């Protein structure tokens, strides 16, 4: 395949830890195959050499937390033919969306000596709340194989094979023993989107919900089952309020956060 016909790839960062875009660099064995099919035109984590847009495929990491982000994502969208958001920050607002439940002005006063230097939003929100997104890849961080599947599917012009069922299905396919039923370990697996290969339950830990809510999560019934394992209401709230706290099904699970400090989206 000649170089001219290669689609271009851009990788963008918003509020995030870089773990998801590093997943692309972590594809060591497949990286040459990726560069064989795609021109890496903009990927600051990998190279300071950039090529001007527009870009065929954009991978967007991170959430929108500043007024500047709001403008920049519009430009990224304008420059991108196919835009994929990667990771819990980009798809749900990330752990930093905990700010959505409290008063950011107060936090700024506590943390920073001169808050006036900062220009930030009161919320951390998913990319899809600001621009149209062509595909969302879940996870904190995303799964390497799933990223390659999304890129491979894009190149082949087909839908990515990313199952939307629960982590439980992955557990059972791996013949893992159910940690909740057999060990009494609190686990968000039943209402969590698959994709990690049931990583934590495979090591006898409960699922933390890194991949966010499954397609039709019954959060109330899940909270009830977690209470049976002995978790307090506060502990259940904290379990729902990690990387995907601002995902729509999880954000209202915050029964123990005092109402006056909670903000509406």
């Amino acid at each position, binding site marked *: 395949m000649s170089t001219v016909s290669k689609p271009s790839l851009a990788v963008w960062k918003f509020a995030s830890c870089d773990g998801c875009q590093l997943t692309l660099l972590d594809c060591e064995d*497949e990286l040459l*195959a*990726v560069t*064989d*099919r795609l021109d890496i035109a903009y990927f600051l984590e990998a190279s300071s050499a950039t090529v001007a847009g527009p870009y065929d495929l954009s991978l967007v990491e991170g959430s929108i937390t500043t007024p500047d982000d709001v403008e920049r994502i519009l430009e990224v969208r304008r420059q991108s033919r196919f835009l994929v958001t990667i990771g819990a920050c980009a798809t749900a607002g990330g752990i930093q969306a905990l700010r959505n439940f409290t008063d950011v002005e107060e936090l700024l006063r506590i943390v920073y000596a001169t808050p006036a230097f900062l220009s930030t939003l009161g919320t951390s929100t998913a990319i899809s709340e600001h621009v149209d997104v062509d595909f969302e890849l879940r996870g904190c961080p995303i799964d390497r194989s799933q990223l*390659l*599947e999304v*890129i*491979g*599917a894009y*190149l*082949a012009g*087909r839908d990515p*094979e990313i*199952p*939307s*069922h*629960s982590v*439980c*299905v992955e557990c*059972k*396919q*791996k*013949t*893992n*023993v*159910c940690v*909740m*039923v*057999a*060990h009494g370990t609190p*686990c968000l*697996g*039943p*209402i969590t989107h698959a994709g990690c290969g049931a990583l934590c339950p495979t090591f*006898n830990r409960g699922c933390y919900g890194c991949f966010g809510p*499954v*397609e*039709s*999560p*019954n959060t*109330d*019934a*899940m909270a*009830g*089952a977690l209470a*049976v394992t002995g978790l307090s209401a506060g502990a259940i709230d904290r379990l729902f309020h990690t990387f995907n706290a601002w995902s729509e099904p999880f954000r209202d699970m915050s029964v123990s956060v005092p109402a006056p400090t909670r903000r509406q989206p």
Partner: protein
Amino acid sequence: MAFLVGADCLDEMIASLRSNGRTVIGPAVRDGVITHDQIESASELPLGWTEDQDGGRYRLVPTGTDERFAFSSPSTSWKRFLIPERTLLLRARRSNGTVAVVEPEPEAPSVAFFGIRSCDLVALGILDRVFLDSDATDPTYAARRPDVFIVAVGCNRPGNTCFCASMNTGPTPTSGYDLVVRELHSEEGTEYLVDVGSERGADLLAGLASRPAHEGDLQRADRAHETAVASMGRELRQDYVPLAALDPDHPRWDDVAERCLACGNCTMVCPTCFCSTTEESTDLSGTEAERWRVWDSCFSLDFTHLHGGSVRTSTKSRYRQWLLHKLVTWQDQFDTSGCVGCGRCITWCPVGIDLTAEIAALAVPAAATDLGGRDV
């Protein structure tokens, strides 16, 4: 004709099966449960263990005895040894403008199922109807199933979630085995009554130390059977309703949907749920593609995804589909119930939804309940 053997004989059976080149799959303690796994000797059997099973709960409990089969349904069914979680169906390679497709020969491992219970044995018979007795025989299943050597075991201690007696599927195996073993436990020790179900079963037993069973041995086995029948934790009363008459608009469906997580665990642990999806993958270079068959669950939204969206969008519709297929339309398709009363769907449901309780509630006409609704 039945024979009596000592505990040593179980080990000899396993050794003999293994020396014939078979992988022996049997019950074993793993990660805090009794499951089915590859075993190399009778020492791996769950000696001295039983379990406390209930809706959404499973705990191992010591028996304080030398019984090896004092448990009820192991955590996993046997289906994965016949319809694996993932099966490669074909591989395609593109070169010089042509596509070469290779369909791999189905694997045919030589295995023995050691210690399969009556409920699970009946489940195999149901899978046989689905995958063998039809115009569309499944190559994967057909390559694995016929050769399986079956050592069945009578179930002496049904669990809290068991209801095979009311499904007429147990607790004592009646057919479909090469050998059947029944554990006879007493203060003096534990012995095993062995009966033969096939020629190759007889051949295996002939090589082992045994004596013909006495009338007293048979009576002990019968008593163990009666005790087991009487200690079923649950019941699915066949006279509740003509199941086909279950009201699809009964308010109980909404009630169960409020509790159901739609996680799919029930279908994964069910010994007869056989649904699969097909996954296609391509490599980055665009020269190789693969098609895999993968276990699927009717509780996922994607299961009914057609052009334009999913058919069963609500959990209510998915639960109703599962239960009515299992108990009602399965009869129309395969001339048998899809449920064998093993109770796994109850135990391994994280919120403990109990299909026997759901059926009992659904059998009461909606008008007669305080939930209201229309008449059956």
